[in-house]
């Protein structure tokens, strides 16, 4: 699993990456009341604003950690956004993307790097 500084994670199997937000992110958001996820077949560039998670009257933007084409969004999370809080790494996954530039993964943080990032930014 790799991480971004925006508190997202991506788990790649073959060419498909599953994307979600980290435990830190779901805690910081509070109870998620609405998840706006990218539509399948949408083409995204790395760091594109691709959706939003709403909690406590705040809409937080979602960014794509990699470039590619969205192949699936998590309909369960659309129905029950609380899954993001309850299970951010398993049932609370957000969308799956077919990577167009797998080399982008190299620059993302690994687990230790992400932990460090949290420490350095005072979390």
């Amino acid at each position: 699993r790799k991480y971004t500084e925006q508190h997202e994670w991506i788990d790649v199997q073959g060419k498909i990456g599953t994307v979600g937000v980290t435990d830190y992110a779901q805690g910081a958001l509070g109870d998620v009341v609405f998840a706006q996820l990218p539509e399948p077949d949408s083409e995204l560039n790395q760091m594109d604003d691709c959706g939003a998670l709403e909690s406590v009257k705040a809409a937080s933007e979602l960014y794509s950690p990699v470039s590619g084409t969205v192949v699936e969004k998590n309909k369960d999370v659309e129905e029950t956004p609380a899954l993001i809080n309850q299970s951010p790494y398993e049932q609370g996954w957000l969308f799956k993307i077919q990577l167009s530039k797998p080399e982008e993964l190299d620059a993302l943080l690994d687990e230790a790097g992400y932990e460090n990032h949290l420490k350095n930014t005072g979390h």
Partner: protein
Amino acid sequence: MTYLRYRQICFFRQFRQGKTIILRNMKLSTIASQSFHNDVSKKLVFVSKSTNIFENLAIEDWLYKNFDFETQSLLFIVVIGRHQNPWVEVNLKNMSENGVFLSRRNSGGGTVYHDTGNLNCSFFSSRARYNRKSNLENICQSMKCNWNLDLTISPREDILLNSYKVSGTASKLGHKNAYHHCTLLVDVDSTKLHHMLKVDQLGIKSNSTPSVRSPTLNLKSICSQISVDEIIQVLGNYYIRNSSSQFEGLNFVEPSEEKFPGIDMLKLSFSNWHWTYGKTPSFVVCWPLGEQSPELSIVVQNGQIERLDFQNITIDKEHSRKLSELLLNQKLDNNLYNKILSSNVFEKMNDNCAKLKEMLLLLCLTSV
């Protein structure tokens, strides 16, 4: 048709950096370097000269997208939240009869009514400096100092006076930038407020963000000397207090293309059907209303009728087919309204067809 209008104030701070944008009247498109005293944080306040919703939403969006808030922070209808459903939140019939437009903002939260008795305050900052509670505390403190108003902040971060809501809050959080904006009910037309936000029960099934309704109060009803203009001065001055840099005063800005390049496009993006209605999360309307086993379920996605599910038998096959022809893949807008009005599908359909027609017409009363 008239647009609901309101006043807009933006608060921000500008730090010493190599490249800054001069934010005085009216050179926003010019980037020049400025020398400031060391460690100075320059606070600036914009007051929009416009009372038009789409211009004010556009100016907020422009500032959010174009400003570098590492170097500066900013404090700047019926408006629905980003993930709300207008068919649930708003009385479209009353809006239509009164010539009132609807708009959708980019931040979360619920539905609000704006007129010129309302002041919208927007606090812009970098994501790291975002602090909604602090902004609200500043408002409460400054209002208390000037008018002795005992304002409190509720757990939902509404501002209350005597247990009544006088301000609602919402935010948008990006990676680099963020804003918190809130309303202030100074002297709003309460009758119109309730009239527009009163909802006809369409029995809509949806997971869009619901509004949390609260009883509201105008500040002017408690303190008769208060006015939107005076609050602008008070909040603006309070925000700039303790600023050690040269005092810029309040900047009254026109949300024009010349001063905010690209703002015309943003304004268009806020004022079209696709944004306001097309961005509604999927929902289902069942007919007859309130029945356990509906005869017809209308599935709406992106503001468009995607599917009609017929159950039970009071609508016969022929009429089901004609209804599908009329409604499938149609946007809920004025075009469909006219098609339904002039259609003969509803004649001799069944006993309840007049009510079905009425319900469908109500769904199409979209004002943009």
